[in-house]
């Protein structure tokens, strides 16, 4: 039996790993996006101590290798008596970590948001929350679309780190197959194919979303 045949027979394991990766990715990236939006809202308005702490937190996360965060959550917390489920701590860590990246992406775009539009909203009786949700956030998301696409790919790749904290996902499936049959090259090539396929699909979708913004003058491609 060739190495490829062995892998074909183990296709169910790959598939299960793939589905698990997609679940983790889907859940954590949704959470990350919402966290990023929420952090952006918290950063609205005049500088304050709370906002400064949030900025420090965001920067601290961005400057931390994701692997360290996963280690800390899974191995570090139990020493304080906190024991988290590997799957959920993985999802949570990804969501917070990439949420901070989203916050930073959005913040950059918020910095150059035209003040005139804000004044127009205030003059029309908008309060902060509604103005943010209806006027600021939609434009920021349209404006940062290519960066959002980039971040999706980063987050997808970071799911692979969860193998280290024993989450049964795609990379874990390849790991265990390559260990069992000693066929690391082929096993990992298959996994690379999966990551590429998902990334390319996301790129295409994000690119298509650009039409929505182009109609409104946000893209000039």
């Amino acid at each position, binding site marked *: 039996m060739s190495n490829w045949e062995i892998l074909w027979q183990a296709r169910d394991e790959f598939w299960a790993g793939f589905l698990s990766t997609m679940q983790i990715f889907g859940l954590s990236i949704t959470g990350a996006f919402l966290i990023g939006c929420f952090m952006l809202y918290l950063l609205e308005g005049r500088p304050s101590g709370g906002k400064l702490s949030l900025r420090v937190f965001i920067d601290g996360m961005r400057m931390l290798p994701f692997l360290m965060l996963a280690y800390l959550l899974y191995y570090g917390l139990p020493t304080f008596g906190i024991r988290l489920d590997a799957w959920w701590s993985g999802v949570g860590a990804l969501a917070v970590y990439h949420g901070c990246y989203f916050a930073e992406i959005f913040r950059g775009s918020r910095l150059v948001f035209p003040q005139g539009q804000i004044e*127009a909203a205030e*003059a*029309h*009786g908008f309060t902060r929350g*509604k103005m943010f949700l209806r*006027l600021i956030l939609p434009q920021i998301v349209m404006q940062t679309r290519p960066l959002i696409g980039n971040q999706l790919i980063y987050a997808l790749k970071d799911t692979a780190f969860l193998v280290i904290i024993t989450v049964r996902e795609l990379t874990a499936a390849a790991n265990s197959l390559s260990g069992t049959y000693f066929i690391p090259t082929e096993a990992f090539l298959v996994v690379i194919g999966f990551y590429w396929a998902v990334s390319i699909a996301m790129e295409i979708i994000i690119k298509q979303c650009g039409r929505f913004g182009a109609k*409104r003058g*946000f893209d000039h491609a």
Partner: protein
Amino acid sequence: MPETTAVSIRQLSKSFADVEVLRDVNLEVAAGDVVTILGASGSGKSTLLRCINWLEQPDRGSIHIAGERIGLDDSGKRMGAKALARVRAKTGMVFQSFNLWPHLNVLHNITEAPIHVMGKPRDEAETHARELLAKVGLSDKAEAYPGTLSGGQKQRVAIARALAMQPEVMLFDEPTSALDPELVGEVLAVIKDLSAEGYTMVIVTHEMSFARAVSNQVVFLDKGLIVERADPESFFDRPSTTRVQRFLENHG
């Protein structure tokens, strides 16, 4: 305060850093009045207009919109955000640089505040918006996005957007200053129509013949002081201060 006073400004003062930009300004705008504010660049015209809807916070004095104080409550404490937004919604503001919301099409720019601030039902807001678009001559642009409009069209949408709030007073800050000369006329024509319909308006402008034609009160600001106020005939034909005489000579 009588119901018919749209805007009442008392003893208004405002400084930026240590520069006093407005000094003890008093101004009454009756319902149906069109007041134009003239003055040299830097004289405080925009600041005065922006104080009326509290985009700038005055240091002293009071402003009432249709009898209701804006910015501070009766005991002089700052209003909460909700209360301030509600009083602000009684004014409609048109900016020099239009400030449309580019992600919304023309119709939705106009219905955005009526629906999400005033809580109007969507169909009612859209019907009203289409009437306003007809009024400003842009019925065919309801589905267009701001980015595809000319400056004059953008400004007419901005006027319709402000009118949709059914404000007690419309505030215009140099509504034609950002426009190519050939587009100025279409915007001024819309504002003239509004004055004929009895809208209350406060207009900062550098268009002298327009100010003369449209207003029933002209206010001249110089270094934050109102140095002359008169009906347009007296103001333009028989200015009583040399400051205004000089200004008019320079502005043909």
